[in-house]
Structure formats: C-alpha cells, structure tokens
C-alpha cells in the first residue's frame, strides 16, 4: 500500500465507530467506504438526498434517479431511503450526522478550513461543504500532507477564503493524524510508518503539540 490516497482512506476508516452516520465528500473521501472494518456498521448519508448508501450497483443496473452528490450511481442498503434537499440539510445542520470526511485545499492551526475556492481560478462553488463543516458533530479533514509544490497544506493561517471557521476536529494525512482539543489546539497523535517526528515537523507549517501517548509507525507504509 504505497499510494498516499489509499493510505489516507484506510486510516480515515479507522476513525469510524459502529452505528455512526457519516457523510463522505467527493473524491478521496468517497474511497473511505472501501476500507470499513467488517465489525463496523456505518450508515452513509449523501447530501443530494439519500441515506444508507451501499455499493455501486451491478453493471447495467445504474439509474439516473439513484446517484450520490458526485453523480456516481448508488444502491441502498436495507433501511436506506430518499428525501429532499431541505430535509437533507436539516439532518446535516441539525447535528444528526455524526461525522463527515472532507478533502481540502488548506487547513490551519485554528481549525479553519478552506476547500472551496482558489482565488483567480475557475469557480466551482462550496456545494454542501459549508453546511457539512458547520453541522456534522466531528469534522475530519483528509488530505495529502503537502501540496504539489511541496508546501504544507497544514498552515498557520489559511490564505484562501474559508469554508468554515474553527470547524476541523481531526486531520488525517498519509504521514500523520492530528486531533484538535479546545485548549491545546492540534495535537499530533500518530505518525505513519516511514516518517519520524522530525519529518512531520519539517513538512507541517501549523503549530501543534505532541501527544503524551504518541503512536509512531501507527499506519500506512509497508506493514
């Protein structure tokens, strides 16, 4: 397992708890569903209006009226159902979704998230991300640790327009896991195989402290 995205998705799946309701953002976060442990049952909500999202339907069974927010065909597990957008965001904003996993452009030491617009580039829009980071009980940012130009995506202060202020609870990269506590800010909890504490310090712009029970070789890399 050497692909960074696969490492991140697999580690993110380890955050899941039995019985949780989760929402997975488009792209990398969607991959998390592939790594859910056998003894864990989670229920996946998609903000365009379905809950209990199951595997991709068998070839030939795709249906224009059954898709997720990324327009990929879906099936429902037993107990799943469909609803309208106002109800969907009532669930999300109302704290009925336990956990969301979102990719990002930037995240900073205050927990600010910037993942919807790069100034000067083509506008896509925030979609449901602002509602998700505001409403979900636990907000996980899942992202590669550094940008393509080598700079840290975990910054002192986001420079792009924010998606949410002080909303990020957990950051999961292919190199480390950080958890934010109300008094101490982000705390480095885990370092992936193949990285040292110094490696993480060198590629992380934001301030953080190191957990007393820090786990080294915690995930990823060659087992």
């Amino acid at each position, binding site marked *: 397992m050497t692909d960074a995205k696969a490492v991140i998705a697999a580690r993110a799946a380890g955050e899941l708890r039995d019985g949780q309701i989760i929402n997975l953002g488009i792209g990398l976060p969607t991959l998390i569903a592939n790594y859910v442990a056998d003894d864990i049952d989670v229920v996946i909500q*998609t*903000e*365009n*209006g*379905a809950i209990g999202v199951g595997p991709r339907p068998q070839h030939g069974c*795709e*249906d*224009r*009226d*059954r*898709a*997720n*927010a990324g*327009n*990929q*065909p*879906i099936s429902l597990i037993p107990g799943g159902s*469909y*609803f*309208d*957008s*106002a109800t*969907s*965001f009532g669930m*999300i*904003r109302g704290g009925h979704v336990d956990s969301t996993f979102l990719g990002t452009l930037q995240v900073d030491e205050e927990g*600010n998230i910037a993942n*919807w*617009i790069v100034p000067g580039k*083509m*506008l*896509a*829009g*925030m*979609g*449901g*991300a*602002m*509602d998700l980071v*505001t*409403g979900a009980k636990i907000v996980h940012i899942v992202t590669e640790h550094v940008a393509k130009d080598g700079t840290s995506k975990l910054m002192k202060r986001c420079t792009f*327009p*924010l*998606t*949410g*202020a*002080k909303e990020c609870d957990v950051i999961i990269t292919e190199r480390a896991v950080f958890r934010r506590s109300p008094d101490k800010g982000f705390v480095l909890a885990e370092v992936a195989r193949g990285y040292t504490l110094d490696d993480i310090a060198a590629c992380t712009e934001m301030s953080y402290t190191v957990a007393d029970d820090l786990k080294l070789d915690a995930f990823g890399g060659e087992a």
Partner: protein
Amino acid sequence: MPKNKVINVEDAMSHVKSGMSIAVGGFIGQGDPLTLIDCLKTMDVSDLTIYENDGGYGDRGTVELVRQEKVKRIVASHVGTTPEIGNAMNEGRLEVVPTPQGTLAEMMRCGGAGLGGFLTPTGIGTIAEEGKQIVELNGRRFILVEALRVDVALIRAHSGDTWGNLVYRGTSRNFNVVAATCADYVIAEVEDLYTLGELDTNSIHTCGIFVDAVVRSNSGYCVLREEGLDD
C-alpha cells in the same frame, strides 16, 4: 373534482418572460426539468435570474440557456460540473452568486412557507457573511438569510396526477420539492401521468396545491438516461 392542470409545454412555458427570476429543481442531472429547459431554449427571452443547485451536468441543463446568453445571473451552490458556466462568468457574460447548498434549499422553502427569513450558522466566519445581517442568540452568531420568492419554478417529477400531485423517484427529489413552493407560477414536467386518485394519498411528495401546470416529459430525459454516468 380538483382542476385538471395538464397543458402543453409551450402554453405552460409562455409564462416565462424576459427579466424574470426562475427557481429550477434538480441536482447535476438528477431530476433536472429538461423538457421545460428544451422549450425555453426555443423562446425569445433574456436577462433571466436562475436559482438552482447547479447548472446541470456537462453541456445539458440550464447551462444551455447560459450558452444562449438568456441568463444574466445564477444563484447556485456549485457550477463545477458545467465548465461553460465558469467560462461565461470569467468572460463577464454571467454573474454567479455562490450560495451554500443548505442555505439555498432553505431560502426556497422559507419563501414557499410564507416566512420572511431564517437564521443559519452555516457560513459564519466566511464570505457567506458578506452583506448579510448577523443576529446573536444565546451567545451564538447566525446569518439572517431572507426568504426567496421567484416568478416561475421549473421542476420535474417521476409520477404526477392531473391536479399536480407529484411523486419523485430516488435522489431526483432534491431541490424539486422546495422549488415547487416558492414561485408565483409552478410548472412540473412528469414522466408518468395518472388520473386523480391513482397516487397513494399517504405518499405524495409535492401536493397539487403548489403546482400550476403539469406537462408531460418528452424523450429528452430518456436520452440522457442512456448516456450513463461519469465516475
């Protein structure tokens, strides 16, 4: 007996005039009212303001009206699935107002329900605050968002009856439910049309009280269905 509202698409769409505001249901192709949009493409209207989650998918949806320069402004949560909208914006031919998805849905619901507005925590601390009134309640800050009322709504349902009771299918329900409530004139295209009393009284998603005209979907939607979906 409740009124029969089934009319042909041209008569229904003749209510759309230049300069109007229009709420459109659908979500990147799921439940988009393509029969109504196809009709609008043939009409001589301009300066429309569109409220919709997105601009459609690829080159199909309200993006087609943007290409025809019929639209001056689109209020949406996401236009990333229709590059032509980004191009039009960058070239100054179109104004795009990005709006959080839940806020946009609630604006439509609120307008349809006769409320003046609502207080949302979504967007606090972001540019979504800009130009908005902030209300503090019990130590929490909220954005005051005004309810939306529009001239016309264009929506699509799977099943409908002659009075305009509608049943959606799967994730094609989305914004169609709220868009149906907030307009002075609501046009619904339906794939399957039933006589009164055939739909389950306990399972109607949009009550006919909200709908002004019912139009049969043409094959346009089916063509899209055959195209399959991207991954």
